[in-house]
């Protein structure tokens, strides 16, 4: 395996990790608006992700950084080509990030409520738009011979990409709900489990349509038919099992299954892309691949050594942090956010 291929895998892992981790805090952020009955409940919900959301977001930052370092052409084409989409993702993440810190700095219901709306939109827009980004990338974008992408509105926003964004968003929401049922007590715990149970069906339907559309619009089932089919079967299994575990009040397992569902969905995108990193809709010859978009061998070697050295530590203290804050959150204790 070439180093550039290894880096494709590593970047996939970073994005799979990002959607698994930030996926649930996006989901919690979204559900604050309809699962919480009042501000007090919203506060409990926000505090379940309090110690985690920032580190979860670093998976995205690192993913983007890794793309820059390992595949400068991919980074340049994608970020300049999806300019406005990236702008909105940024604005969403900015609003959301400060909202956690600011929401209860002033004891005023309207103040808190305003920031809570930011948390809602900041948790809804980024996963939706990143879903749009990845699915439209899979479909192919107008990338020319010079590797530059001149995308029009309908290249970015079309039925397929919207459906992709919608599916990713629903998956995050479901994942957030199973997280909430795992991390809260009493009424919120019950309500999130009940809503998760209903949502599983919607996620299921959405995924079926998404797979159907993908088989028409993209070439991923021609590129890797067996692997993609296996992944689809596994997604079905994971989501189905999550329904079973939610029903049986086995919240840890339910959360694991919704997490698996997200991870498999994201991995299906990367599996379908490989060895391409950006598909050109104009000409196959203009595709950006792991071979023509990557950094030199030396640079990749250095980065591999660095990543292999640091990542175990990162995983170690990340697990430690989740272990420290493993208890359920309730309003009987002091809530920081």
């Amino acid at each position, binding site marked *: 395996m070439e180093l550039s291929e290894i880096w494709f895998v590593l970047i996939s892992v970073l994005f799979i990790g990002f959607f698994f981790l930030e996926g649930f805090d996006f989901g919690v952020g979204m559900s604050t608006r309809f699962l919480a009955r009042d501000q007090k409940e919203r506060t409990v919900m926000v505090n379940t992700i309090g110690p985690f959301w920032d580190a979860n977001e670093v998976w995205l930052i690192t993913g983007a950084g890794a793309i820059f370092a390992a595949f400068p*052409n991919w980074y340049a084409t994608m970020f300049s080509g999806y300019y406005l989409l990236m702008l909105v993702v940024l604005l969403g993440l900015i609003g959301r990030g400060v909202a956690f810190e600011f929401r209860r700095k002033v004891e005023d219901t309207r103040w808190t409520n305003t920031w809570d709306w930011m948390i809602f939109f900041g948790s809804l827009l980024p996963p939706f738009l990143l879903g749009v980004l990845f699915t439209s990338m899979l479909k192919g974008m107008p990338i020319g011979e010079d590797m530059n992408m001149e995308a029009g509105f309908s290249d970015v926003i079309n039925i397929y990409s919207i459906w992709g964004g919608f599916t990713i968003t629903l998956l995050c929401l479901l994942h957030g709900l199973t997280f909430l049922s795992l991390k809260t007590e009493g009424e919120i715990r019950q309500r999130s489990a009940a809503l998760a149970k209903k949502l599983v069906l919607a996620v299921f339907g959405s995924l079926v349509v998404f797979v159907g559309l993908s088989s028409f619009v993209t070439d991923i089932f021609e590129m890797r038919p067996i692997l993609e089919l296996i992944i689809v079967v596994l997604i079905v299994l994971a989501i189905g099992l999550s329904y079973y575990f939610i029903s049986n009040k086995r919240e840890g397992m339910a959360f694991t299954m919704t997490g698996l569902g997200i991870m498999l969905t994201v991995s299906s995108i990367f599996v379908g892309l490989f060895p391409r990193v950006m598909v050109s809709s104009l000409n196959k010859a203009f595709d950006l691949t792991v071979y023509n978009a990557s950094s030199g061998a030396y640079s990749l070697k250095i980065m591999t050594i660095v990543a292999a050295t640091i990542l175990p530590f*990162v995983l170690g203290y990340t697990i430690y942090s989740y272990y420290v804050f493993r208890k359920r959150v309730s*309003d009987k204790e002091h809530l920081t956010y």
Partner: protein
Amino acid sequence: MDPVMLARIQFALTTIYHFFFVPLTIGLAFIIALMQTLYVVKKNEIYKKMAKFWGHLFLINFAVGVVTGIIQEFQFGMNWSDYSRFVGDVFGAPLAIEALLAFFMESTFIGLWIFGWDRLPKKVHLASIWLVSIGTMLSGFWILTANSFMQVPVGYEIRNGRAEMVDFLALITNGQLWVEFPHVITGALCTGAFFVAGVSAYNLLKKKHIQFYKKSMNIALIIGLVGSLGTAFSGHAQAQYLVKTQPMKMAAAEGIWEDTPDPAPWSAFAWIDTKNQKNKFELNIPYALSYLSYSKFEGSLKGMKTLQAEYAKKYDRIVGEGTNYIPPVKTTYWSFRLMVGFGMAMILLSMIGLYLWKKGRLLQSSRFLKILVPAISFPFLANTFGWVMTEVGRQPWTVFGLMTTADAVSPNVSSGTILFSIMMYTLIFTILAGVMVYLMVREIKRGPVEHQDVNSAVSIDPFNKAGV
């Protein structure tokens, strides 16, 4: 307007704004870690109160710093895609390492610190804030590794039409990095120190929580002096390095058009006429520029006219005939002077403050305390002007000697798009600045008292001890 100019405006806007928060984060994290160490060692509750109170202000600032930082990482790709293609091989690596090594550490341990006051053993909790502090400095190190490459490119070869990394060690032992990094870190310490000193002075003037703010002030003044002296020394080292590596930037920062006499005088004030390439009026301090450049009272410097000819001979084949290698002279000249001026003022203020403190007259010196309040802005201004000098002074290059700024911009992004995003950033930055200042002032007015937690107060369960 042309996209290059707009992309530059956006870069200046987002970077300068982001860099209001970064040095305060680095400086305060260190100071808070120090306070908390005193608490753990001396077991005096007042230090815990200090770590908590300054921590509240720190976190408001940290939140804005983090989110405005994400823009930076995306911006290279969005606005400077040709730059990213050309140098990604070299430049992307430190950015990715920054995320892996520093951001993960910072964000995980800040979470442990914020939420861990009652949940972690004291020493582990203390270790968390130190790891945050180390994380902020590591982050600085790696982003400056990337920036140093733009000032003094090393460890690369031009292959396949782009700069490819051939020597990683050269990147992290870049001479530029080792004059720039200490300068930025000591500047950040000043920022934290003068923030703490200014806020303390404000409250001491109001005679509120005197013990608390006196102790805070004491710590701040010591770090302020160490930081400001450190900035001066590392700045001097940087200037000497600059003469060797980017003589044009140095000449512009000094406003010298013709080669200087030997020994070279330092210009304290000059009326610069860029069009006719001369200064209409100069106020010079003899010998000083020689000392600044070579640490001895002899030696001359080349003027911009000589350097223009030299650069033309060397670089015209890369960037085309007739290129103007002279950066905006007035901006470079004056931002350099303002940076140095505010830096000197900080040294002076820390010295006076420590003197008064030692004589036990600090609390009576209301005039001095009154100066410390607006002096909160000094390090912010010095930091900003320092970066303006560094980045504007490097023009027309984006990577010195390799790529011009005009060639670095994204070819597929229109002026309208960049303008639109500038407007969005301006809007959101304005709101954020307003909210942040409002919250900071509120916290400062409230002072170091335990926060009344409305929600938990409402939900106290009389039968549950944990609820009280």
